[in-house]
């Protein structure tokens, strides 16, 4: 059951999207979100949608994986759309009890739902095509200017990559502890919510203890391998912006500018 946890899941591949510099991809997601929130009309939504579809097609991420990733947000999407549908203002088409459906309401419901779905899909494109390591490395480089403000950028990035590194190990450990508790008669799947929460306690305590021990050992091992902070560190894989990164960023800027222009023109 725990094997299904997909935190920032990554699908390895060798497409242009995969090869893009992580910094480019992070910036693209920001530009894409900005464009999405500036889109007001059917046409501008269409433009953003075409862009997203193109990115998905080029990255060869299967649509099935995309849809699977949407599962956790289905509830929010449906709820938002429903609220927009039932409480819209304007020309009333149908009415029942306190609810009334308006022409504007229908439009808002569809666009709001689309916006959420596209938002999630767009950000998934980042984590689906970028390995967690590259992602943290890209973030570290993008945030580097903040070092001047005494923000511990390297330390934060290192903490993030350590956390990512330990997730699979801790999941494995949780599975082991659960099996051990089950073997001694513990039940995790029965009872009401409070009983279930109580049953988690014998899992969490050993998990916490072992995490601290693990962290301690890992720190010692890192020290033994000459880790002494970010100062003077070099990298096996150095990031370099290539022509394709500049072109992609150009496309991203054009997308945002286009959507804003469309909004200004009232289209």
């Amino acid at each position, binding site marked *: 059951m725990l094997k299904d946890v997909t935190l920032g899941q990554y699908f390895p591949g060798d497409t242009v999207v995969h090869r893009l510099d992580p910094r480019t991809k992070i910036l693209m997601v920001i530009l894409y979100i900005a464009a999405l929130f500036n889109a007001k009309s059917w046409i501008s939504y269409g433009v953003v949608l075409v862009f997203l579809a193109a990115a998905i097609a080029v990255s060869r991420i299967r649509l099935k994986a995309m849809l699977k990733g949407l599962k956790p947000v289905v509830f929010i999407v449906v709820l938002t759309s429903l609220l927009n549908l039932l409480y819209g203002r304007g020309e009333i088409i149908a009415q029942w009890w306190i609810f009334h459906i308006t022409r504007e309401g229908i439009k808002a419901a569809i666009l709001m739902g689309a916006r959420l779905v596209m938002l999630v899909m767009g950000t998934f494109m980042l984590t689906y095509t970028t*390995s967690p390591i590259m992602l943290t490395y890209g973030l570290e480089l993008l945030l580097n200017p903040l070092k001047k403000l005494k923000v511990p950028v390297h330390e934060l990035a290192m903490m993030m990559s350590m956390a990512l590194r330990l997730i699979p190990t801790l999941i494995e450990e949780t599975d082991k502890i659960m099996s051990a508790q089950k073997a001694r008669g513990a039940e995790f799947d029965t009872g009401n919510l409070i009983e279930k929460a109580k049953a988690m306690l014998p899992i969490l305590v050993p998990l916490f203890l072992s995490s601290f021990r693990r962290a301690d*050992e890992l720190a010692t091992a890192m020290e*033994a*391998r*000459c*880790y002494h902070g970010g100062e003077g560190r*070099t*990298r*096996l894989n*150095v990031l370099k912006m290539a022509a394709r990164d500049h072109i992609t960023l150009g496309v991203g800027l054009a997308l945002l500018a286009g959507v804003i222009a469309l909004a200004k023109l009232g289209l």
Partner: protein
Amino acid sequence: MDDTAIKIENLTFFYPSEEEGQAPEDVLSGVDLTVEKGSFTAILGHNGSGKSTLARHLNALLLPKGGSVTVFGMDTRDEELTLEIRRRVGMVFQNPDNQIVSNVVEEDVAFAPENLGIPTPEIRTRVDEALKTVGMYEFRTHAPHLLSGGQKQRIAIAGVLAMRPKCVVFDEPTAMLDPQGRRDVMRIIGRMKKELGTTVILITHHMEEAAMADRVVVMSDGQIAMDGAPGEVFTRVEELEALGLTVPDTVKLMWELRQKGVDVPLDTLDVEECAKALAEHFKKK
């Protein structure tokens, strides 16, 4: 040219006591040990004998409370030299899961050279070389958590080799591995000594592993109890058993035969040698 890799003189160490006012108990009390360059030393001892504490002094993870530890001519208490010491004396720990720092094998192996500020092309050379030495080159883009324990431990060894250390300390590297993983790791340790000329220090409680070394040091209660060639140390069966250690099965068999008045040699460390000695003995009869 000085042939000494590590020189420990009258080393004393204790962990700060947990309760106020209580005198801390010495974990190491007066250890003297000299390790020659290019040698293979096994350090044996039961749990709590101080062998891991001793190991941690060799690369300045712990600093002496009394006495001194000199590594390739450098005193470990000199903080300026800590990095220089650690790049020369690598350390492989017991649990492979707790020493791998990255989600990609090659990135993990690159961790130490990255810390040392080695230029990128050189890191690539070192990583590839280290992975080939441990036979894990094909796995360089894999995720470590999907590999077996033995494979993970080999990655950890590669991560240390990428520093190009002169000496590597193994702190019970096979304790959590299956027999296959154990054999692989021991084969690599043997090769490092022979082919790379690395000084190897192996902390273990497996007699069979210690038998591969040139020299066996037995620790007990924070002191060195025995020190000598494996063939010599393992024949002192009663002493070893008094220290809570079991001798290799072959030695045990020969020893018991001798107790019964059969005249066989004691220093047969592997099965083949033992069988040969027995066959010869019966031929004589």
